[in-house]
C-alpha cells in the first residue's frame, strides 16, 4: 500500500470509528457537533457541558429575556441535524491529560478522545469583593439562570438599579431598565459607554443616548464598595468620588473571563487571552507548536488574523462561534490539503435604547474615525475606522444595510478614508482620532517568557504576575 493510500485509509477509519470529545455545550459546541456529522463522522461523539441545559442562545438574555417578554428557558437553540451524541450536561471538565488523551470530569470520570474540541467559552467577571458579591441583589449576567433571577428582581420592580460597567452588556441592561421605567445609574470607569469597543468619539454619542433616555450616567468613576442591609440584601454603593447611590439591584458587567483553568498543566498555549490556535482551529502547545489532535472554537479561541497583521485575535462574537466551530469541525475529520481556514470578518450587534448598533471589522485596531453617512444628531449614521491609510472597521447606528459595503472594503484592504457610497453624506467628512483608551494599562496578567539556553532546552513558561 502506498503512503498516500495508508493516510487515506486512516482518515476513513477515523471518520468511521474515531472518538471525538467536545468540551463546551453552547453555540460553538453544538454547531461543531452538527458539522462533524454533516461531514460524515460516524464515530463516537461526546459533548461535555458544565451547565445542566442543552445548548441555548445567549444574546436574548440581556434583552428580551430581561425585559420579561421571553422566558429564560425559551432560548434553546434550533438544531440543524441530529448529532447522535452522548451529552454529559451539568458536569464540568476539570483537567486535560494530553499524554493519555483523556478529559477529566468534575465527578472524577475520565473521558478518552482521539480528537478534542475546546469550546469552553467565557464567564462573567464577578464583582471582585466576594462578601459584597454574595449580597442578594448583586448580579452578573451570562447564563440562563443569571438572566432568570435578574428578570424576577426587575419585575418587582426595584427602586433603582446600579449597573457597574458600560460595555455592551451593561448598556443593554440599562436600556431594559429604562424600557421598564426603572430608575438606573450606570457607573463606568472609562470616559464613556462602549469606549473600549468603539472608542471615545462613538462613546460620546452613546453617552448622550443614555442620558436622553433618563440614565443617570457617571463616567470616569468606579464603585468603591457595596453595602447591604441586616438581611444581607444590597442597598447602596459608594463611588470613588465619595458619593452614594441607593440601589437594591446591582448588575456588575465587568467583561468576561475565558474558561481555561481546566487546561492548567496540559501544556497548551492557554492563558488569560484564551487558547492559541491557528486559523484552522488547531490548538498551539505552550511552545507555539501546532497540535494535531486538539482544536479550539468560539469565544475561548484566539487565532492570528490575516486582515489584522496576523495579530492573534479572540472574537467573542456570535458568528465567530458558529463559523469557527464549522471550520474546526471540518478540519477535525480532514487532513492537509483539505483543511479549511476560519477567515471571519468579525461583526456584532447590540440593540439598546431603540437603536441598532452594528459593527464589522475590529474597531480598536483603528486609530482614526470618519463619519461617512447619515446624521449623528439623528443617531442614524455610519462611520469608518482607519489605521495607516487603510479601513479596518466600521460602525453603524440604525444604518445596518450599509455594513456590507464597508465589510467588502475592509476585506479588500480599501483606503481610509473610504470612498463614500455616494448617498446620504454628512457635510463634514474629516477623519479624527478615534480615541481608544490606552491598552498598556498594568493588569494582573501572566507573561509568556522564553527560558533556557540550549536550543533543545528552550521552552516557554507562564509566570503569573502577583500584585
Amino acid at each position, binding site marked *: 500500500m502506498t503512503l498516500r493510500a495508508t493516510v487515506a485509509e486512516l482518515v476513513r477509519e477515523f471518520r468511521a470509528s474515531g472518538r471525538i470529545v467536545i468540551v463546551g455545550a453552547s453555540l460553538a459546541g453544538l454547531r461543531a457537533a452538527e458539522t462533524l456529522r454533516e461531514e460524515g463522522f460516524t464515530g463516537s461523539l461526546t459533548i461535555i457541558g458544565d451547565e*445542566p441545559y*442543552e445548548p441555548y*442562545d445567549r*444574546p*436574548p438574555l440581556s*434583552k*428580551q429575556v430581561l425585559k420579561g*417578554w*421571553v422566558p429564560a*428557558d*425559551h*432560548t*434553546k*437553540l*434550533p*438544531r*440543524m*441535524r*441530529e*448529532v*447522535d*451524541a*452522548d*451529552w*454529559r*450536561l*451539568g458536569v464540568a471538565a476539570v483537567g486535560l491529560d494530553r499524554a493519555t488523551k483523556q478529559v477529566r470530569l468534575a465527578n472524577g470520570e475520565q473521558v478518552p478522545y482521539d480528537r478534542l474540541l475546546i469550546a469552553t467559552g467565557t464567564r462573567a467577571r464577578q464583582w471582585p469583593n466576594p462578601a459584597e458579591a454574595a449580597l442578594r441583589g448583586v448580579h452578573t449576567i451570562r447564563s440562563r439562570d443569571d438572566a432568570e433571577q435578574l428578570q424576577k428582581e426587575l419585575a418587582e420592580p426595584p427602586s433603582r438599579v446600579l449597573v457597574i460597567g458600560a460595555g455592551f452588556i451593561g448598556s443593554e441592561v440599562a436600556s431594559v431598565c429604562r424600557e421598564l421605567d426603572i430608575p438606573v445609574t450606570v457607573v463606568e470607569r472609562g470616559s464613556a459607554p462602549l469606549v473600549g469597543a468603539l472608542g471615545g468619539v462613538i462613546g460620546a454619542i452613546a453617552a448622550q443616548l443614555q442620558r436622553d433616555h433618563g440614565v443617570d450616567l457617571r463616567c470616569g468613576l468606579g464603585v468603591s464598595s457595596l453595602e447591604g442591609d441586616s438581611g444581607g440584601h444590597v442597598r447602596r454603593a459608594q463611588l470613588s468620588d465619595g458619593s452614594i447611590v441607593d440601589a437594591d439591584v446591582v448588575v456588575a458587567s465587568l467583561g468576561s473571563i475565558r474558561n481555561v483553568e481546566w487546561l492548567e498543566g496540559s501544556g497548551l498555549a492557554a492563558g488569560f487571552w484564551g487558547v492559541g490556535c491557528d486559523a484552522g482551529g488547531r490548538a498551539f502547545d505552550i511552545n507555539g507548536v501546532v497540535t494535531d489532535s486538539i482544536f479550539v472554537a468560539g469565544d475561548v479561541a484566539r487565532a492570528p488574523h490575516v486582515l489584522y497583521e496576523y495579530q492573534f485575535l479572540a472574537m467573542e*462574537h*456570535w*458568528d465567530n462561534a458558529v463559523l469557527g466551530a464549522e471550520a474546526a469541525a471540518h478540519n477535525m475529520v480532514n487532513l492537509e490539503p483539505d483543511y479549511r481556514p476560519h477567515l471571519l470578518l468579525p*461583526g*456584532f*450587534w447590540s*440593540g*439598546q*435604547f*431603540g*437603536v*441598532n448598533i*452594528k459593527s464589522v471589522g475590529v474597531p480598536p485596531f483603528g486609530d482614526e474615525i470618519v463619519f461617512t453617512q447619515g446624521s449623528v444628531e439623528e443617531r*442614524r449614521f455610519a462611520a469608518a475606522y482607519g489605521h495607516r491609510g487603510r479601513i479596518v472597521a466600521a460602525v453603524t447606528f*440604525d*444604518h*445596518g*444595510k450599509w455594513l456590507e459595503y464597508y465589510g467588502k472594503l475592509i476585506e479588500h484592504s480599501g483606503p481610509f478614508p473610504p470612498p463614500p457610497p455616494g448617498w446620504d453624506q454628512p457635510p463634514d467628512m474629516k477623519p479624527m482620532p478615534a480615541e481608544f483608551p490606552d491598552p498598556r494599562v498594568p493588569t494582573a496578567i501572566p507573561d509568556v517568557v522564553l527560558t533556557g539556553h540550549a536550543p533543545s532546552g528552550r521552552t516557554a513558561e507562564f509566570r503569573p504576575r502577583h500584585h
Partner: protein
Amino acid sequence: MRIVVDLNRCQGYAQCVYLAHEVFRLNGQEALTYEPNPDDQRRLQVERAAAACPVQAIVIDRLDGEERGETS
C-alpha cells in the same frame, strides 16, 4: 419550535414583523427582537416570515423534540 435570527445578517427590513408580529418585534427603527422558542401553532407564520426575509437571516430548527436525542 425553535428559531434563531442571525442578527449580523439582519438588516431590519421587518418583513418578519409583518408576517408574525407575535414572534418578531422591532425595537426602534432597526433593532429586531424575537421569541426564540415560539409556540408550535405559529410554525406556518414563522416559516412564511423566514421565507420572506430578504437576507435569509431566520434559521428554523430541522428536528422535532424526539430527534434531538438528549440523554441528560
